[in-house]
């Protein structure tokens, strides 16, 4: 298998460069940028959907991007089992195109919120997280539509199926409203699909790869090494 990582780039994406920097730094390879109107994506390797404001976040964050040719390809590859990671706006796109459950709606505070948060890793059996040694990591968040919503029925399915990956927590892993930055159901910050090859998370591991911003993002990217 060829060593590839692809980043899908939409008009309005703005964490694409940051993600590429993190991938280069941690995985020692140069990611391939795919423009949103790419209608045939071959051998993408891991697919990343970066953060930002695809199509200006107009209508609902992520929705307009789901109508692009590249997302049709992402859906096709997802069904084949290709690992796909959506961060922030990428997570919003993945829920809007129904690769992931639930929806991301306006933060309870109604305000954009940018800060570092702690995340408890809920599931380490998954290939996205199994190499992360720590139980709690610290990544920044920066979003205004990051409140994860899912109804009770589907929440139970997520739980029963071990699909919840990250929860907002204290430094020591306590989960409570106090540590919930946006009002997400059960502090959920990231989930995978049923087949567990599609991951979406609101926090930004790519923003935590140097000594100034914290280094917890490094383990996230390093952990992906065996997938490529």
């Amino acid at each position: 298998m060829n060593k590839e990582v692809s980043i899908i780039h939409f008009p309005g994406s703005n964490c694409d460069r940051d993600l590429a920097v993190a991938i280069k730094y941690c995985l020692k390879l140069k990611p391939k940028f795919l423009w949103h109107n790419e209608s045939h994506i071959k051998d993408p390797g891991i697919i990343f959907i970066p953060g930002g404001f695809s199509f200006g976040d107009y209508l609902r964050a992520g929705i307009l991007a789901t109508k692009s040719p590249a997302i049709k390809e992402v859906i096709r590859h997802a069904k084949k089992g290709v690992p796909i990671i959506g961060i922030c706006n990428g997570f919003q796109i993945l829920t809007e195109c129904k690769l992931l459950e639930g929806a991301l709606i306006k933060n309870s505070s109604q305000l954009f919120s940018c800060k570092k948060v702690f995340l408890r890793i809920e599931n380490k059996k998954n290939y996205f997280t199994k190499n992360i040694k720590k139980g709690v990591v610290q990544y920044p968040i920066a979003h205004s539509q990051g409140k994860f919503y899912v109804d009770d029925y589907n929440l139970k399915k997520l739980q029963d199926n071990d699909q919840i990956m990250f929860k907002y927590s204290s430094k020591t892993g306590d989960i409570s409203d106090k540590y919930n930055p946006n009002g997400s159901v059960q502090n959920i910050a990231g989930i995978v699909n049923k087949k567990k090859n599609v991951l979406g998370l609101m926090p930004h591991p790519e923003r935590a790869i140097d000594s100034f911003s914290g280094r917890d993002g490094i383990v996230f990217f390093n952990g992906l090494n065996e997938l490529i």
Partner: protein
Amino acid sequence: MNLENNLINAKTIIDHGISKSEYNRILKILKREPNLLELGIFSVMWSEHCSYKSTKKWLKTLPTNGEHVICGPGENAGIIDIGGNDAIVFKMESHNHPSFIEPYQGAATGVGGIMRDVFTMGARPIANLNSLRFGEPSNIKTKNLLQGVVKGIGDYGNCVGIPTVGGECSFHKSYNNNILVNAMCVGLVKKNKIFYSKAKGIGNPIIYVGSKTGRDGIHGATMASAEFDDTSIDQRPQVQVGDPFMEKLLLESCQELMKEDAIIAIQDMGAAGLTSSSFEMASKGNCGVKLFLNEVPCRESKMTPYEMMLSETQERMLMVIKPDKKKITFDIFKKWGLEAIEIGHLTDTGKMQMYFNNRLVGELPIKPLADSAPEYDRPRKKKAFKTIKVKKRNLQIENVFLEMISSPNHSSKEWLFRQYDNMVMCDTIFSSEESDAAIVRIHKTKKAVAITCDCNPIFCYTDPKLGAKLAVAESWRNLIASGAKPLAVTDNLNFGNPEKKDVMYQIKKAIEGIKVACTKLSFPVVSGNVSLYNETKGKSILPTPVIGGVGLIEDLKFVTGINMKMDDSIFIIGYTKGHLGLSVYNQICGYKYGKPPSIDFDNEIKNGNFVYNAIREVGISGCHDVSEGGIIMSLAELCIKNKLGIQISIPDEIKKENWLFGEDSSRYIIITNNEKKLLKYAKKMNVFVKNIGKVKGSSFKIINEFEISLKDLITYNKQWFKNYIDIEK
């Protein structure tokens, strides 16, 4: 010539804000009466906002050269050299009037406008800052304005993906009906890839790209140059709506096009839209222009040439390109979903010729119009101050302190800056809550720039010259404290109505102050903006010359924050006389009058050099300047930021209040565990330093005075915004 002659009468002329003498000047230039379109163009080109007619005479006196200056005032933004092939492009601009009428859109479009000024020059914006002034919190409009402005700034910068890394925000009743929203943008450019606005090449196409032109903001430039009255709120069509998504597309597509050798000149359509951008490009290049207005993409039907030329629709660019690069230009914009349109070309006539429906609808000589823009030496008079002594409230030190840290102006601005993405681009080392200046790494290098904006309007009100000097010095000091070498400034001069003698006096004196300080500190002015007529019903704002400073940190290892570690020692650098005139202490106690602290630039430079070198040679944990609120406020900020306690003793030789709250210039706090080295170095440099205590425990303790737990200290500091905005409990 066969121009359609719309009738112009005395009222039309007055409505366009053109004075009698200005109209005579127009007649002299044209040797005929202008038509309505031409009159409209004169009115915006000669508005205060575009022509600087009240301030030009004084702005010319500012020091604008220096060893690092690549481009001073006169272009869209200033440029300084930061070594290697890197240069920094920056400017500050106001959006005061629009933000008062519509806070969200006004502030958003202010951010958009200043970013375009920066990326027009070939730079990629790397940081946004803002300087905000609101009215009294108790004023019914304030809360709404605050919420709208902050959200507008945040939403715009966040969407484009440029980190908003710092700024300032304060409240004063003089801004009740005239808030100030000053936005600063800093960009990074390769020295050999700088773009300017000088048009050249007869026949070369003029390309329009970006949003379609609507009727928004028609006469915005004249609005920004007129005093407010009760009808201002009804000036509806002048509001511009921002489209940050379009801005992002323009940014990326222009960056891509700039890699090709296609652009000859480029300008954003800012104030006075198509008019000022086309006139500026042509007048710089001594060219003429033919515009075919039917080609201008319009959002609304039946737009007239007058409306097209004067519209201030945001997110539009104008450029002159090489004729053989048309295809690649159009292709690149198309890739980004934008349509570029050729709306005219350069000529050798020296005239602006506007065609509509195959007819010449306006013709103006470009050079004369720009060169003979009016320039006034307006009369000035110093304002006499009453020296009423207000009864002093008798307060304990502790009470003054607690009132101070929980006051609107000095409480934590977390509510505000949380709404800004300060990390996108992953090069933000410190935002301005973490260091005296925000620090942004130059991507892929070990260099960083430090950026700050400052002004103390209370000082400027009593003594505009000294106040302006102090603003420059504070900016300089903030850069020093963050580990940077100060390089250059941009300024944003916010004042009332220049036709009033006392306001004109303030303006002239403030510019003089900036001139003196920038000269002494070798801190040239490379760009700026003037916002006048900040006045409602005859009441003007406090004079507010905001200074945006930029400095260079040559190696990330010298980056310095407001940091401390347990058991470190705390030193004050610089002598404390304890000046309380106009201090926060005096205001809390009810003394409203007095003089600002004096400044001795030799001493400023000596202390600054000491700190700059101590950061490099002594090894320190952190540094913080001493400004509003005095030593005690700086110490409190250190404790709150680091969540560590301190124990401080007040020296005997000075009155407690004066020492704790005095606002003398040229002082810093340094935190270090290399006490001996620091003292030795201070002795060598002949700088006054004093060890005042230690980082210790979990409370804020002034020995023999009071002690407050860190937890309470933080609560006091955070409660005001929480309560004011009524954040859901």
